[in-house]
């Protein structure tokens, strides 16, 4: 086995192995656990760095492992997977630091970090999956690895949310599995190939292919929180903040969105999907979700719930971009995969900081929090403005490409109104938060101040992650046209997808 064939496996193992070891650590071996976590995350960053370089220079990284006749576990690094892998890797590193700070002194840390690493490993596997079968495997693994994280606190509320989460995701997983098997029977092992392969099937299969597409979209739509399959996401926000951050930014919802992108581009082929009339259907679902999510977010007082509905809305931008035929829309959707991730993780980090430092859970308690926690609130503000689409933050770039792609594809008539309505609603639910945080006078006392106002606003491990990710969100927009930026990478993906 040469290096090119081992690298995907190494990338996967760099989180899987530490995760498995951590399970067996004693609760109090805090140092060793931290060391393992950070070593894994660091190793992954280096390995992914090599991978980025290699994929850019047309290297093929491919690991194969036969599980059964005709069923191969394939890990393959192409441009799209590298984009998702890099996002997960960087955000995992940051989130690990955050989680170490967040869970300090709370019970069951070994279990938590074990599943945390498994969750990331599943995401990485999903990103690297080279065919639909492998994708399904990691998709289900992700469900399993996240369940204990949501149930982690063990309160009746947490257990209830975890149960709802499972109900949705396992149901979705079953539907996805059905679609995947069916497709496998018709078309053989569905390797992900840029441009898709199904257009070569004879016409009589088109009816079946449509049905399969529907099954796959329902299966993936559950995790991507497409309305009406989104019900679990607002519930899952009872999880500890680092979990929410990971769930909303990297792992679960992204897995669904990434799957939609994969199926449309690399299984069906976007051109063929459009010919079957399926792209429009996806677009409508995405549009409804975008608007619905934003509307629901308006009325939430619980900060994390508001953010959760915002995720419902924002993740569908990715599906929307996918539904826009043409390279520019594609770029918009794919780049939002990254942009939404870094912005949303910032928001959840900040929300976690408010809760952990001052006991703030609701928007109505946030008056004047900007004075008490300026750095956190600044990070929150940058991410929130980015979500609205204010330049030069990352979200603007996504909206720009989505809008431009829609105009070029002749879909401006409905995509642009959706974008505008969503921006207005985003502003309507984020700006009041910022107003309270920066302009209102603080209440005489915070709900539960855990960390007294000293030299720093909160613990370092909690403070730096949101600051760093907010910086990334800013940089991703400000230097969008720079080499190796997410945008440039999305451009590369679009070029390879459309064989430009």
């Amino acid at each position: 086995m040469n290096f090119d064939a081992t690298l995907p496996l190494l990338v996967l193992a760099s989180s899987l192995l530490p995760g498995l070891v951590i399970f067996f650590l004693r609760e109090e071996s805090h140092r060793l656990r931290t060391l393992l976590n950070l070593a894994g995350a660091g190793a992954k960053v280096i390995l992914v760095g090599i991978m980025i370089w290699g994929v850019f220079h047309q290297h093929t990284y491919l690991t194969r492992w036969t599980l059964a006749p005709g069923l191969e576990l394939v890990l393959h690094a192409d441009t799209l997977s590298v984009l998702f892998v890099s996002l997960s890797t960087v955000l995992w590193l940051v989130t690990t630091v955050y989680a170490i700070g967040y869970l300090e002194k709370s019970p069951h840390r070994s279990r938590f970090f074990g599943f945390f690493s498994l969750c990331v490993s599943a995401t990485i596997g999903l990103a690297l999956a080279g065919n639909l079968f492998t994708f399904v495997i990691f998709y289900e693994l992700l469900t399993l690895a996240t369940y204990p994280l949501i149930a982690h606190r063990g309160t009746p509320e947490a257990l209830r949310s975890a149960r709802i989460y499972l109900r949705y995701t396992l149901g979705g997983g079953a539907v996805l599995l059905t679609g995947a098997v069916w497709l496998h029977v018709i078309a053989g092992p569905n390797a992900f190939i840029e441009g898709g392969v199904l257009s070569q099937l004879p016409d009589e299969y088109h009816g079946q292919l449509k049905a399969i597409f529907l099954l796959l979209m329902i299966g993936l739509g559950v995790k991507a929180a497409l309305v009406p399959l989104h019900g679990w996401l607002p519930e899952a926000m009872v999880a500890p903040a680092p979990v929410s951050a990971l769930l909303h930014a990297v792992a679960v919802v992204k897995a669904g969105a990434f799957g939609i992108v994969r199926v449309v581009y690399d299984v069906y082929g976007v051109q063929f999907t459009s010919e079957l009339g399926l792209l429009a259907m996806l677009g409508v679902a995405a549009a409804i979700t975008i608007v619905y999510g934003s509307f629901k977010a308006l009325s939430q007082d619980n900060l994390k719930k508001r953010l959760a509905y915002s995720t419902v809305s924002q993740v569908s931008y990715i599906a929307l971009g996918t539904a826009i035929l043409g390279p520019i829309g594609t770029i918009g959707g794919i780049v939002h995969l990254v942009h939404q991730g870094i912005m949303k993780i910032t928001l959840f980090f900040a929300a976690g900081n408010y809760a952990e430092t001052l006991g703030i859970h609701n928007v109505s308690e946030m008056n004047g929090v900007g004075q008490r926690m300026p750095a956190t609130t600044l990070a929150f503000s940058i991410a929130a403005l980015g979500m609205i689409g204010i330049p030069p933050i990352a979200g603007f770039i996504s909206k720009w490409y989505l809008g431009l792609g829609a105009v070029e594809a002749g879909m401006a008539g409905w995509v642009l109104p959706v974008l505008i309505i969503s921006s207005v609603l985003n502003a309507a639910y984020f700006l009041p938060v910022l107003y309270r945080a920066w302009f209102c006078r603080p209440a005489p006392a915070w709900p539960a101040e855990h960390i007294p106002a000293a030299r720093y606003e909160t613990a370092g491990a909690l403070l730096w992650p949101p600051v760093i990710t907010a910086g990334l969100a800013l940089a991703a927009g400000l230097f969008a046209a720079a080499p190796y930026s997410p945008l440039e990478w999305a451009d590369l993906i679009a070029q390879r997808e459309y064989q430009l």
Partner: protein
Amino acid sequence: MNSTLLLSIWLLPLLLATLARLRHAHWLLPLATLPALLAVAILPVGTTVSLPWLLLGSELGLDETGRTFLGFSSLLWLIAAVYIAGSQHAITESGRFRVFFLLAMAGNLGLIVAQDMVSFYFGFTLMGLSAYGLIAPASSRRARRAARTYLAWTIAGELLLFTAIIFLAAISGGALTFDALQSIPRSPFTVLLLIAGFGIKLALPLLHWWLPPTYAVTPVAAVAVFSGVMIKAGLLGLLRFLPPGDATPPDWGLLLVLIGTATIFFGVVAGLLQKRPRLLLGYSSISKMGVLTSGFGAALAFPSAAPGIVAALLVYASHHALAKTALFLGLGLIECSGRRISLLIGLGFLAFVLAGAPLTSGALAKAALSDSLSQPAPVLVTLLTVSTLATMLLMVRFMFLLWTRRQRRILPLPGVPLLAWLYLVTLILVLPFLVSGIDRLMINVVPVSLGLLLGLGGMLVGSRRSRANVPSGHFDL
């Protein structure tokens, strides 16, 4: 070197904004305008710098229009900054106000040197949103409501603009620089979006609802930059996005002339009905933006005469910017330390300047505009003259309001703001003579005198009878 300078026009205010919350950061505010002033002084016109890594590939540059805009804008931001740095107003003292001041400044100066749509949009948005902080929404419930109205309209304008830019980028095949877009015909829908988007900034009638409440509650130094400088970004936007010539069908010019004309008289009539000097000045700004809009419309309608008209518009815009800022700052001095005869004399002079009295920059601006319009559209010259008369009327009313203003305690005048104001007034006084001969400044004698007489007459009549009582902040048609 050039690129560093052009970039630092944006960057320095942004960087200083991060420090502005520090305790003694007042003097960072004026400092932030230095790169812009330096650029106006030393950069040759036509300098462009490509920054392919910035945003979606940016281009910064200084053309003739940009230079003029950058000139008066940086100067006025400087003066306002000094004024704020030296004053002891509770709101402008706060770190938060300083941060937003610097951010708005960065946006405003940045959009002037932007030579592509995305950078312009970035500057425009940064300016528009940061100005929210200048309204100081936390100071009172009224202020909060005003700020919210402002924000809603601003975001609406930005979204209209965003949509228009998307369409433009789609038509141009991805090219974003204004140069590349110079001769690509705009679709009617795009033009409409642009007019509406910038119309909000220019406070054209029906798009102006945000302006009166905002001007009523904002600290006066901020109103000065609102009304003097930031409002002009609307004009710059029109000039950048709808260049006269092939790009914009001439029919739209006619529409803009009509809109502009309506705006002129709307501003005057609404202004005359105000009881608060600030609002009167605000409506006067709307009226003046009508003049600029009409002029711009004429440039669109007569592409051959466009270069001359645009040059004249630049002069007019500069004049209005200086005069209006000075009026507001002077008003601010009265508001904070009471009515004094010396201040009233200065403001009286400024009122004449704004109206376009002979031997002032107003006359110079009017002359330039009339000259450029006399050939293609003589009717507009007449309109300008009527507008001069109307403005004079408005200014008489302004002085009257100041004169009859209820006197409160007289406080000592703050030194630094006074000096800043005096410097600006002196500049306005001297500037026309530096750039023009006296003979060209001897116009407008008749309309100004007529306006003065009418105004005084009306005042005499009006002081006998109770005046129309329009609640401040709102003008109901």
